[in-house]
């Protein structure tokens, strides 16, 4: 179905491989091994996971893309699909677009090929993986598949074997031997298939490349930013970040508490931060909903906290295992009363390191709540990237030193930030309060105190110098795409492709969502006659948010689609080229 488009839009020279299966087929294991082996051979890559609701044995897909440069999004379609079986295929088939040139290797033991796959016109090749694996001691079908892919893509068998041996070493020699035998068998089968899909190999050594997930990248950024206390409650797809952080905080002088719920999480980090320790919590939509009262307290009491919301499909419990950007509204507006705070979002997986470091810095500098919006797509995808640059933010909380006369915790200052006395500081005790208060912190119902403190809390955010970090702005031309978060990768590729078609397009990928840098945004939009706003929501939350604060050009379009399928670079390119080229 994408073929018509493809005639005009040159895709990035990349290889997209989808592995699908259910019932403990080990799809994700193969995906990871494939990613690692390709990385070792010199490719860049990205692996997205798409899982069903089952805890074990449910259907799942490992969706990979390889290129000779860092991969920031899925491609328009998959070149190669390996299917162990088709159970519950209807649940994810829409997430695996195919072209007529695609190849689908499917195990006949896994059932009939579903209609939409047949319709796609892709080449269907039955390959017995199950039966072959059974013939080998400790054999498993997923390792046969790994062999198939390796020969089709020309991966070095040696690298594969090394990767597999390392990763399965804890499972015992027999398992490793069985796996290697399967890989060899698969590779042989693959060679006989007459499909060639050589892996794009990048120049240069792999020493400075990392393999990292978005959840890990956020966790690392938080650690680098100085977070030393985390409280959290498990929730998909955020738990993995907590699990990554727990032992690492314990090893860096910090501490993580698994709280009884999200109400406790957010209040625990408020307590820790009040004690002077940079603190963070991590959750997803439902937990976010439970935290807004606490976030409001952080704003009112001017206690720095960082809250990461790893977004998933909503509303309500929604689709816990799949991605969406639909918590934008609650992040921007979810607090009662006037609760000005900061909202940031990483524009890619490696950027999560920077964005989190910055988020901690902003929370501490501005003594407010900073909400970070990640999503399942960023969080649970794993990439091969160049080591993210080390940007040494100095986290600075303005603290009050002992001996200040007549200390006023909430003093009105030029920049709106007032010195915070950390418990332990002699003679500086005060009571932090979520009631409206005067400069000292004493509760006040007076309209003057209210207005002054409202102005203080809002003013400190507006007046702050966010530097260049507010957005990634690239390119020129009279068309601009304004986007954010996990859509940025696909947008970037679309812009590159449009450029190749002679249509230059500017990128404005917001990293700072609130407060909105309206002046900088207007400046970035200067000379732009057409704007495309790209986001993964249903109700165009981002588009409406921009409208609410900025006068967009008359010719402004919105490209919004809910999850779970990520927006593809092809559909964005198509939209950009309409009427232009």
């Amino acid at each position, binding site marked *: 179905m994408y073929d018509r488009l493809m005639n005009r839009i040159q895709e990035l020279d990349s290889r997209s491989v989808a592995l699908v299966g259910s019932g403990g087929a080990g799809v994700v294991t193969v995906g990871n091994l494939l990613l690692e082996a390709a990385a070792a051979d010199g490719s860049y890559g990205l692996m997205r996971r798409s899982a069903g609701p089952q805890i074990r044995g449910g259907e799942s897909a490992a969706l990979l893309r390889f290129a000779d440069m860092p991969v920031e999004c899925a491609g328009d379609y998959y070149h190669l699909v390996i299917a162990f079986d088709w159970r519950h295929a209807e649940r994810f088939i829409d997430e695996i677009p195919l072209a007529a040139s695609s190849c689908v290797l499917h195990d006949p033991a896994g059932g009939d090929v579903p209609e939409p796959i047949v319709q796609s016109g892709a080449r269907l090749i039955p390959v017995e993986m199950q039966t072959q694996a059974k013939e080998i001691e400790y054999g498993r079908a997923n390792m046969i598949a790994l062999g198939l892919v390796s020969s089709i893509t020309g991966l070095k068998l040696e690298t594969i074997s090394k990767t597999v041996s390392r990763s399965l070493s804890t499972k015992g020699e027999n398992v490793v031997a069985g796996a290697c035998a399967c890989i060899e068998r698969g590779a042989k089968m693959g060679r006989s298939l007459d499909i060639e899909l050589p892996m794009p190999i990048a120049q240069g050594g792999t020493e400075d490349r990392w393999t990292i997930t978005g959840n890990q990248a956020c966790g690392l950024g938080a650690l680098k930013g100085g977070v030393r206390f985390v409280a959290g409650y498990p929730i998909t797809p955020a738990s993995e970040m907590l699990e990554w952080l727990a032992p690492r905080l314990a090893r860096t002088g910090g501490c993580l508490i698994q709280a009884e719920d999200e109400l406790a999480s957010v209040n625990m980090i408020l307590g820790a931060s009040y004690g002077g320790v940079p603190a963070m919590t991590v959750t997803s939509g439902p937990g976010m909903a439970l935290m807004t009262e606490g976030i409001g*307290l952080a704003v009112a009491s001017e206690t720095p906290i960082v809250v990461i919301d790893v977004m998933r499909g909503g509303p309500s419990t929604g689709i816990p295992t799949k991605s969406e950007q639909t918590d934008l509204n609650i992040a921007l507006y979810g607090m009662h009363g006037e609760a000005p705070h900061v909202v940031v979002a990483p524009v890619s997986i490696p950027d999560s390191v920077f964005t989190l470091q910055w988020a901690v810095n902003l929370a501490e500098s501005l003594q407010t709540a900073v909400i970070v919006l990640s999503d399942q797509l960023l969080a649970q995808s794993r990439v091969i990237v160049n*080591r993210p640059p080390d940007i040494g933010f100095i986290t600075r909380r303005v603290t009050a030193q002992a001996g200040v006369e007549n200390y006023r915790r909430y003093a009105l200052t030029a920049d709106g930030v007032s010195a915070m006395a950390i418990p332990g500081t002699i003679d500086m005790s005060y009571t932090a309060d979520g009631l409206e208060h005067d400069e000292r912190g004493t509760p006040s119902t007076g309209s003057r105190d209210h207005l002054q403190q409202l102005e203080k809390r809002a003013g400190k955010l507006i007046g702050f110098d966010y530097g260049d970090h507010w957005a990634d702005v690239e390119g020129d031309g009279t068309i601009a795409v304004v986007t954010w978060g996990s859509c940025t990768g696909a947008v970037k590729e679309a812009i590159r492709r449009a450029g190749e078609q002679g249509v230059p397009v500017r990128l404005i990928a917001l990293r700072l969502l609130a407060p909105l840098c309206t002046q900088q945004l207007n400046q970035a939009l200067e000379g732009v006659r057409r704007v495309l706003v790209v986001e993964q929501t249903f109700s165009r939350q981002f588009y409406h948010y921009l409208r609410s604060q900025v006068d967009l050009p008359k010719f402004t379009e919105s490209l919004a689609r809910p999850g779970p399928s990520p927006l593809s670079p092809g559909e964005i390119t198509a939209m950009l080229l309409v009427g232009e080229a």
Partner: protein
Amino acid sequence: MNPLPGKSQPKDYKSDVKPVWCPGCGDFGVLNAITKALASLRLPPEQVALISGIGCSSRVPAYTNVYGFHGIHGRALALGAGLKAARPDLHVVVAGGDGDGFSIGGNHFLHACRRNMDMTYIVMDNEVYGMTKGQASPTTAPDWTESELTPSGTHARPFQPAAIALAAGATFIARAFSGKPNLLAQMMVLAMQHPGFAFIQVLSPCPTFRPEQKEWKNIVRPFAVDALPTSDPALAALHCQRDDGMSTGVIYVEARPVWRRSNMQEIAIEDIEQEFRL
């Protein structure tokens, strides 16, 4: 915790903020007892944090001169736990009302007892929501019909703070009366010295919405059993159940390891980054 070297008077722990409390409110006695206890422990004010939720009773931090956080309704224990975990050097005291602690905050109470962090929790129990003008709280008798919100009573068994604390795992459990601030102060000293989660239910009358509680001073009496305090949970449970809720004293003391942070060998963040290399 280093005790203060020099003087240490209760008044040294009072702030100049005037309480919003009604005349005759029991919470005055609790405030006095807190300052007395701190003075008798000679704790430097800057090493003490008094954390609360929302309610008349929860206003107490600002009336002292220790560090305070007047948080949101029902979440004081979580706030306190985060502070204690991040700053184990501080002496953390959490205070609030029966509504704050047992109604909206009930879950944190359960888990604070389980966790057994080294902190003190003081609940000023007046069997009513004072701040919101007189509704039934979890400790209110089921047949109390003075609130229009529950015109024929709550139809629910009153919450038994001591029994729940015991079942949940608190390691120091006591009941006291705000009308006897000296006794209360002594009990607070024991609670603050106790390593682990120490809970004191303070009967603290609300003359405004529960005028009949003015009679409490004639009803409360020490537990009439030599066996208390005990470290036998069965015995403690028995006495909690047999009591009408008006006996005061330390009920239960248990020596259980207090919550502590995981102690793992320290490494640098650069070392952590190694794991991402290919």
